[in-house]
């Protein structure tokens, strides 16, 4: 019965979404109070019914109800309970239910947290979100029903959850990622409501900021978890493959990064308005495009769920409706919103504009590389665009961005006496150069990429440190932190995160030692200054798999460091073979061993992958910094304060702008 109840709840949600998309919107134009006030209860109902549907699916998994075909194909009676719970989002249909539930969660949150908005605006935002939700719910209902039954031929047991997904990081990666993806729907809905209203001021941009930052944080952490998971679980030791499905989440991430920066300009200066609105629309459209890439089957990868063209067509239609409506609204309404605000070249405004240009170029590079194979195929040529192409192009806009990143935060809004800043920048650059030279040569072989990458990392870090000390220069040691606004502190932490990630990427990319070798029991091989002795190869049995486990004694100059024991697992239910890498993690280097196949019948000789990867953890560590920085910034009190009137908010002197970062007084007074 639970499956039918779940099905019923989805249908209920479908009608609620339809009502939410239509009635409050009509009410907002006809000034009908009943229709306007229906927005909030409808949102509550949508969330409740989708949560109910999700719990029904959870229940079907927990009681091993293999008469539900989604359960039968993604679970198994032998599966450990924790994975039965998470298997709900282990496939296309269930993960889409989670996706829709996540959107409903954001809607609930919006309904609860924006009640101080003018009523018309409030109901329009919810109504736009309702329309998006309607699109997703109907997609689920008509093409991807998770509650479809296998009757009358109920399988005795399920065919198991993909063993790759039987993993802890995989439990949180999809929900986090989805929260990021659909989170940008909130900024989108704000922008659409603004366009309908024909008014968008600094106060409204300020309201959008915490929502956009929150979505960005979720996407950052979600991608970080996915990258980390790929590294230890796929057994290739890579952390980023420029796979189309990774790009699917990377494009909205870069555009979202541009968005949170441009929102800051609109908030502080009441400028860049049309641009910021356009970015909100573009970011969410890229989220939808990513959904299309992953769920339509046009690409094939670990993430691609299905090869059902019907689904692809549906999402494509929905994408076209959203993009078409956005463009139409933007063209007809944005004209009245934009406003001309002057600023000098040496100003925070200008550097944030450059930031946006570079980030959008980077987004375009990823977009081009992702869709080019599809375009080429349409013209009858099969080709692939992979890491070599992306690695040749993507670093350029990024490196330019990192140069500016060291300068932009130190500038005043509108105008800055740059000559006063030059000595400071020269000092930071000299320190960064000396440190990066030392670091580059102590790493061994010289690479220009390493030198420039490390220089930029130290440059960003040095500039951030200077920013901190300068902004808090009048405070005594104890009260220094309280002198910083949350937004500034968050910014500094996130920028330091960029430096940390950059160090990780650069060093691990160029200084990793990767060897694929043929090793037998008792044999010792040397990789990257470590000796690996194969101790034994044995057979073991887990709860739902059997495995060969091969142990290695790892030592450095004769000193034993650790024993690593990678496994080759055979999952019984799905008859799948899987590689379980064994890693000795460290702040400055990871030792990574994984198994290929046995090269003899007695399993005493193996193809073995041995990697020594310096500083690889810094990649994910930096992403965590970015996430923490984002959370701190999103909690800035300023975002929750109501300006006296919405119109003069940009004239109200802000704490930050009057702090006068670099000691010139020209900036604000002029």
């Amino acid at each position: 019965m639970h499956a039918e109840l779940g099905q019923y709840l989805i249908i209920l949600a479908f009608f609620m979404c339809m009502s939410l998309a239509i009635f409050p919107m009509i009410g907002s134009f006809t000034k009908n109070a009943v229709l306007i006030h229906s927005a909030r209860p409808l949102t509550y109902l949508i969330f409740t019914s989708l949560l109910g549907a999700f719990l029904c699916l959870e229940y079907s998994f927990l009681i091993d109800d293999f008469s539900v075909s989604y359960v039968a194909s993604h679970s198994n009676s032998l599966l450990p309970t924790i994975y039965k719970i998470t298997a709900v989002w282990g496939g296309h249909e269930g993960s889409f239910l989670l996706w829709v539930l996540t959107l409903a969660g954001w809607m609930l949150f919006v309904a609860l947290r924006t009640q101080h908005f003018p009523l018309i605006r409030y109901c329009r935002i919810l109504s736009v979100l309702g329309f998006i939700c309607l699109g997703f719910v109907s997609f689920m209902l008509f093409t991807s029903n998770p509650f479809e039954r296998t009757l009358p031929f109920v399988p005795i047991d399920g065919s198991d959850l993909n063993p790759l997904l039987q993993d802890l990081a995989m439990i949180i990666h999809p929900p986090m990622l989805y929260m990021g993806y659909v989170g940008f729907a909130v900024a989108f809905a704000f922008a659409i409501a603004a366009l309908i209203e024909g008014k968008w001021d600094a106060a409204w941009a300020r309201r959008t900021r915490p929502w956009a930052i929150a979505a960005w944080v979720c996407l950052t952490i979600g991608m970080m978890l996915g990258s980390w998971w790929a590294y230890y679980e796929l057994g290739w030791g890579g952390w980023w493959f420029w796979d189309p499905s990774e790009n699917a989440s990377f494009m909205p991430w870069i555009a979202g990064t541009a968005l949170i920066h441009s929102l800051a300009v609109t908030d502080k200066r009441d400028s860049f308005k049309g641009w910021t609105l356009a970015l909100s629309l573009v970011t969410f459209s890229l989220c939808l495009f990513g959904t299309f890439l992953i769920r339509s089957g046009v690409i094939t990868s670990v993430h691609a769920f299905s090869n059902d063209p019907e689904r692809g067509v549906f999402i494509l239609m929905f994408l076209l409706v959203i993009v078409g409506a956005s463009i139409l609204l933007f063209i007809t309404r944005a004209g009245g919103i934009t406003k001309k605000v002057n600023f000098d070249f040496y100003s925070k405004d200008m550097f944030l504009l450059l930031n946006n240009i570079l980030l959008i170029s980077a987004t375009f590079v990823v977009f081009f590389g992702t869709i080019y194979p599809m375009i080429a195929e349409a013209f009858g040529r099969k080709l692939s665009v992979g890491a070599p192409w992306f690695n040749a192009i993507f670093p350029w806009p990024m490196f330019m961005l990192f140069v500016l990143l060291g300068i932009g935060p130190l500038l005043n809004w509108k105008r800055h006496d740059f000559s006063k800043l030059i000595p400071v920048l020269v000092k930071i650059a000299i320190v960064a150069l000396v440190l990066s030279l030392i670091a580059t040569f102590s790493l061994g072989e010289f690479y220009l990429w390493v030198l420039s990458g490390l220089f930029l990392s130290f440059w960003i870090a040095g500039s951030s440190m200077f920013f901190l000390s300068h902004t808090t220069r009048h405070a005594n040691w104890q009260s220094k932190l309280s002198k910083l606004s949350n937004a500034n502190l968050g910014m500094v932490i996130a920028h330091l995160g960029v430096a940390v990630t950059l160090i990780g990427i650069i060093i691990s990319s160029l200084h990793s030692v990767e060897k694929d070798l043929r090793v037998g029991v008792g044999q010792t091989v040397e990789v990257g200054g470590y000796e690996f002795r194969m101790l034994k190869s044995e057979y073991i049995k887990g709860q739902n798999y059997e495995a060969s486990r091969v142990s290695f004694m790892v030592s450095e100059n004769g000193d034993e460091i650790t024993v690593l024991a990678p496994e080759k697992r055979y999952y019984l239910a799905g008859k799948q073979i899987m590689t379980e890498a064994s890693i000795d993690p460290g702040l400055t280097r990871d030792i990574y061993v994984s198994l290929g196949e046995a090269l003899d019948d007695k399993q005493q000789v193996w193809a073995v992958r041995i990697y020594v990867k310096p500083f690889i953890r810094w990649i994910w560590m930096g992403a965590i910094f970015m996430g923490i920085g984002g959370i701190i910034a999103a909690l800035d009190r300023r975002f929750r304060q109501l300006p006296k009137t919405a119109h003069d908010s940009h004239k109200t002197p802000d704490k930050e702008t009057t702090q006068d970062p670099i000691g010139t007084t020209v900036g604000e007074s002029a």
Partner: protein
Amino acid sequence: MAMKPHRKKKLLAIVGGVLALSVAVGLILYASGQKMNLFYTPSEIAQGKAPLDQIIRVGGLVKMGTVEHVDRDDSVLETRFVVTDKAMDINVTFDRVLPDLFREGQGVVALGRIDEQGVFVATEVLAKHDEEYKAPEVLDALERAGHPVKKDD
């Protein structure tokens, strides 16, 4: 030239923008010629259609009974196998660990280049992901060689 300061700034911004854009497009075009990997079937390679100096992709089925692990003394891996589109074959050699899903008779896509002896030296081998899925390139290779695979195959 008497130009109002804000005009001059605007001009500078436009010139800068156009410059940046052209550099970006130039870079993309340059790298595109170099770094994109075209796909060829074993038959096309046999007909000499594939370039010898470029990294290409080749796809097909791993021919039954052809996978051989070369026993070398120096711990270096070497695997040889034959990829076929059921019309023509190509010998492949690979010195890294094979993916878990690599099996004889199954679809495979290899990245690498053809050496002077006509052997495909692979730097990367991708195998299909599950029982139902065959890489579209593999399907295409079989189809072009006159062995279309039924959808429910």
